[in-house]
């Protein structure tokens, strides 16, 4: 490393991006390996880990919207909850194949995002933020009022998915649930990465950086953002459906403002603007929450707060930016 510091310039300069690319390529296998390792290491925590995997997908959807589109939102739970309720209602009345339920959830989340996105994405900044909160509250109120369909505040229970591929039952130990959720998360991650790296994804980043310039180049910033919002809605909807399938119940909390805010905290913690940040943030937040709440069910919030402050102060780019520091540290 000393040799690098003294400056054999061309190779050294090329090394950092190459290293980063190599790391980037290894992300999915690493995630998969970590997920499977966790399956063996913590066979008694599968309930929590299933929730983490489903939540990571949800935070990933927020990352698409916020990290890549620059849309400030506190309404992502509207899509998550719509997906969860759509899948839940479908499971109670129509079908119970888990994969079909995920599709139903994704469709519902995408539709809600498309419709509300088309309505509210005229606004920007704080106004938009307020509109997204309004959307989540309207959806929650609708769900609460439609008691016959959704169970209202009692929650929608009685969701009994059939065995996965007709073989693997969703039992109380949660093995099927976890592996299923992990697989869905990994597929979601790959798809999200494909989207982010596509010309469309790059255009969205362009809109985030400078919407005027995109408009000057002949693109329509609003159309890009609405599309991105709808696509992210599909992700959130699938995450909601995944939660409904693996937990067997959907509650009003899944369409709440606080659930939106929690996603934002997890994303900021992990690092917005990079997909792996969403996953890392979710794992970090939920694990710490869980461990702290187990040690001290009464004062765990204090520790979470301290941890958050520490991260924001010392790692402004989120936990995922640690890798950058490592690479940069090597270079200089």
């Amino acid at each position, binding site marked *: 490393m000393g040799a690098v510091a003294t400056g054999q310039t061309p190779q050294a300069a090329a090394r950092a991006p190459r290293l980063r690319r190599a790391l980037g390529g290894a992300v999915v296998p690493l995630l998969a390996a970590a997920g499977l390792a966790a399956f063996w290491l913590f066979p008694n925590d599968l309930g929590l880990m299933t929730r983490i995997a489903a939540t990571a997908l949800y935070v990933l959807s927020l990352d698409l919207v916020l990290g890549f589109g620059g849309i400030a939102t506190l309404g992502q739970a509207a899509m998550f909850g719509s997906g969860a309720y759509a899948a839940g209602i479908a499971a109670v009345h129509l079908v119970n194949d888990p994969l079909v339920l995920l599709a139903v959830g994704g469709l519902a989340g995408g539709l809600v995002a498309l419709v509300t996105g088309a309505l509210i994405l005229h606004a920007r900044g704080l106004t938009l933020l307020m509109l997204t909160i309004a959307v989540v509250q309207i959806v929650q109120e609708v769900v609460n009022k439609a*008691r016959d369909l959704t169970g209202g*505040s009692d929650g929608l229970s009685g969701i009994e998915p059939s065995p996965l591929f007709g073989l693997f039952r969703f039992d109380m130990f949660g093995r099927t649930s976890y592996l299923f959720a992990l697989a869905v998360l990994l597929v979601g991650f790959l798809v999200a990465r494909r989207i982010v790296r596509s010309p469309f994804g790059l255009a969205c980043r362009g809109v985030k950086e400078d919407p005027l310039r995109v408009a000057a180049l002949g693109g329509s910033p609003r159309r890009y953002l609405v599309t991105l919002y709808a696509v992210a809605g599909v992700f959130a909807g699938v995450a909601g459906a995944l939660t409904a399938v693996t937990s067997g119940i959907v509650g009003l909390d899944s369409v709440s403002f606080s659930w939106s805010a929690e996603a934002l905290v997890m994303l900021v913690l992990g690092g917005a603007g990079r997909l792996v940040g969403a996953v890392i943030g979710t794992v970090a937040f939920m694990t710490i929450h869980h461990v702290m709440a187990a040690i001290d069910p009464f004062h765990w919030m204090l520790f979470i707060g301290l941890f958050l402050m520490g991260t924001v102060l010392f790692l402004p780019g989120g936990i995922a930016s640690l890798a950058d520091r490592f690479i940069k540290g090597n270079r200089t």
Partner: protein
Amino acid sequence: MSGTFRKALLGTAFLCALNAGSAWADTIKVGVIAPFSGPFATVGQTFKQAIEVYQAQHGKTVAGNTVEFVYKDLDQANPAQSKALAQELVVKEKVGYLAGFFFTPDALAVAPLIDEANIPCVIFNAATSAITEKSPRYVRTSFTLWQNTVPLAEHVAKQGIRKVATAVSDYGPGIDGETAFKQTFEKSGGKVVDSIRMPLKSTDFAPFMQRIKDSGAEAIYAFLPAGPTTLGFARAFSDTGLKAAGIKFFGPGDITQEPDLPVLGDAAVGITTTFNYSQAHDSDLNRRFLAKHRELFGASDIVTFTSVGAYDGAHVIYRMVEATGGKSDGAKAVEAVKGMAWESPRGPVRIDPESRHVTQTIYLRVTERKDGRLQNTEVAGFPDQPDYGFKAGK
């Protein structure tokens, strides 16, 4: 490769199953899921303190088995999280019993789990009638809105009051209360002139007070979940002049629960409620319960209906442990407490064999100031009230 993988997987699965099935040592764990942080933290605190009082009075061992309570925090209604916590308690902590639950959806979430694991679940609070219908392993030691409301509606009718407005929070228990009141009151010849459903989170009650005034009601029936909302409502009732206008205030006792009384102040005086427990209940057992509480925690100010729900819940769990000799058998444990009757700090209670819900005396109470302190004085009792809402539909 995939064959090895599958074998390893099956092996792990088998080991897990083996562990979960057989590891019944002489310590029996009871998992308690309740809010211990956040806005409803007091509820969890009352659960825990009541359990500690019970264990201090009755010892920690039953039939040679030590009973240990494990607490899990669920700060708000979040059924998916409730299920995950319960799963962890069952699979990892190997609890033999589940207990607690302040909110209905959290209690409903564990129904499939307790059925599969054959574990009894004792509900300390969640008060929607439908819960015990969802699994034969639920036992409830709290109350339901139906149970409290039916005798109240009959009482109001007997007072010669003919026109009542109902005002309830717009969620499951609120609607239970509204339906129960309306059905009973109109059967007794009264008329509900306005039914107001208020958003669960509202804090400004002035507009509702105006509606009540306009409806020409002689009295109101109100239900809101205990906590900040009930405070705001009882205050608004007094501040907007409805109290001064002579409109009577009736409701289930959540609205004047003991921890809120000092904050409510004189706004609470004169409110008539029906409930299963008052700190002022006149019995030796209750006095001993409160004395032990003061001894352990320095004060008994927060002792309320959730305390007594947990205290009796602990009692039911002890009897279950006794009946099954420390083995884990949910169906047998529940069978053993069906019809069980005992004396509680709230008075005589018994578990109804059909609904597995507690049959109890519901007291008519008036909030008044006594020796400088506000209390809910029990002025009459309606003995042996069942859960009228069991299988009554919505």
